[in-house]
């Protein structure tokens, strides 16, 4: 162990070629860990600890630390792993920078007065749906001039695996390595019981504003147990639900104060958003004020736009004062994840997690049921 020997200057640089290491005696499922080769040497110890932690919790890992020429090659790699007998690939974690595919997507609103909107967005569904077909219709032109942009998605559109990213931090190699090493240490601390937060649900809505006691109760009931509520998390007796309500004595800042105080392990924010902020929480705010929760779910638009090196969701994950281990947001302006025949994504996620599913399994349990108009 030399991490804290007293170094005046310098660090070893090891250049690695393509490396594939497998850890195969841990459980029945496998996680593919794809590592940007530029990062491998500087995160080796932390990454090995992370893989050991996954093994302890029952996941085999297969690490691949070579680059990919394009999204086709990366998807083919995942498909090959998925198809291997006995591999039982559950998901993939992409660490660093990888080629991106894009999709032309349409977000339809349940409110008829809000027209549907279409846009070209960075797609990780391209790597999650390994059996479906992504294609370009005749005459389709990528708005961004991107070679791997698709407007058609057909066939078996279910997701075979979940896909998560540990992205670059501020577009800077050394800062990314530092952030990843902090992340792996935090993850290890959580898994070994050193990082502990109360199992409480916190939801902050910047969309509601009650001006009467009746409105206060209406909004509170909606967040607690309405059709879009995160039941059974949200109707637990200790759930903390916040929106601006002078008559009810609630406010959004109270909710963000709770987030800083670490009163809940699971936090949902309902806000407007863009790459630089999720509602009142800006990049600067989460870089300087503690984000003390383990699961962070934001429904703000485009907060996870990885085309922006300084996007909000990445700062939530990597800030030096963050305790977040898993963050969900969108790369585009769709906000949430829609409804399916089992209900809203909030309820479906909470129900799956409450039954013991992992976050990735819960996502698949929602996505792989046909969506319906809310």
């Amino acid at each position: 162990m030399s991490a804290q020997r007293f170094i005046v200057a310098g660090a070893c640089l090891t250049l690695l070629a393509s490396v594939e290491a497998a850890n195969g005696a841990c459980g029945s499922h496998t996680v593919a860990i794809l590592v940007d080769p530029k990062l491998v040497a500087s995160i080796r110890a932390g990454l090995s600890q992370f893989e050991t932690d996954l093994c302890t919790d029952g996941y085999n890992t297969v690490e691949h630390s070579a680059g990919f020429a394009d999204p086709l090659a990366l998807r083919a790699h995942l498909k090959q792993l998925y198809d291997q007998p006995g591999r039982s690939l559950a998901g993939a974690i992409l660490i660093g920078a990888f080629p991106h595919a894009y999709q032309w997507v349409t977000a339809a609103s349940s409110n008829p007065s809000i027209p549907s909107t279409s846009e070209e967005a960075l797609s990780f569904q391209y790597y999650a749906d390994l059996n479906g077909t992504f294609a370009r219709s005749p005459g389709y032109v990528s708005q961004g001039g991107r070679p791997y942009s698709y407007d058609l998605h057909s066939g078996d559109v279910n997701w075979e695996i979940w896909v998560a990213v540990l992205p670059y931090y501020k577009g800077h190699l050394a800062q990314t390595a530092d952030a990843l090493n902090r992340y792996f240490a935090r993850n290890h601390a959580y898994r070994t019981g050193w990082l502990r937060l109360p199992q409480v649900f916190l939801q902050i809505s910047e969309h509601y504003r009650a001006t009467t006691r009746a409105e206060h109760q209406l909004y509170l009931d909606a967040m607690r147990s309405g059709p879009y509520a995160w039941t059974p998390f949200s109707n637990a007796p200790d759930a903390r639900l916040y929106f601006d309500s002078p008559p009810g004595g609630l406010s959004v800042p109270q909710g963000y104060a709770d987030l800083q105080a670490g009163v809940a392990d699971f936090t949902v924010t309902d806000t407007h958003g863009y790459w630089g902020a999720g509602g009142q929480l800006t990049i600067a705010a989460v870089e300087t004020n503690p984000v003390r929760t383990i699961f962070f779910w934001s429904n703000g638009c485009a907060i996870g736009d990885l085309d922006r090196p300084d996007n909000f969701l990445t700062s939530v994950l990597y800030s030096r004062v963050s305790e977040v281990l898993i963050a969900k947001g969108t790369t585009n302006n769709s906000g949430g994840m829609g409804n399916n025949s089992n209900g809203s994504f909030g309820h479906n996620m909470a129900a799956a997690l409450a039954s013991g599913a992992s976050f990735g399994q819960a996502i698949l349990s929602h996505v792989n049921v046909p969506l319906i108009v809310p």
Partner: protein
Amino acid sequence: MILGDPTLPRKTQRVPAAPKIDKVVHGVDFQEGIVPGSWMTIFGSSLAGIPRAWTERDFQGDRLPTTLDGVRVNVNGKPAYVYYVSPGQANVLAPDDSATGAVKVELVNAAGRAEGTATLARFHPAFFSYEPEGGRYVIAFSADWAYLARPGLLPNVTTRAARPRETVILYGSGFGPADPALPAGLMVAAARPLANPVTVSIGGLMAPPVWSGQVGSGLYQIMVTVPELPAGDHSVVAEIGGARSAAARMLTIQP
């Protein structure tokens, strides 16, 4: 999209395992023998949660912290000063003590306590070394603060070999008390000379002393003149109070 680790369930969290000490060693050469007022290292498991070094917020005035994230260490029953904690390693400054020989080292954290033993010595000099090549080369500076080491040793840092007859500045720990003594638990506001004479040899030849003293908590600065030696790597050895540093630390010299 998902950032982070989706294998996580929202489950009942584990209780941290109790700490365990594997060994307690000198903080610079990781060999047996710790010295009051100098750096020591504890290796083990479940020593702490998230790795962290002390920051300004951990100090009370000029007093060094004895607790970091709930981790505290006692050496021979006296509180040590905790600089860095992690699951597998803790770096602490040994408290002042007149005892020598085997002593009990205790680490306490939120999950429990662990005991180990260490050998307390009056002196155990050791030089800090650059990280590459297993710490083969001592950290050395010229009088105008150029990095002295084998050229190319450090990526993105210009280094050069030391020259015979020039003054070099070395750093270490375990050189014993200063004169007048500096309490281990207080920040070092001003450098003070060593209370005991130190000799340094380079390549087996005596290196004439220029100045030797304590310049920080557990940190000693040794300034010597490089003797006439041929080109190559030469071992640097310090001796104080009858204790010698390991001969495995090198300085590259080019006349």
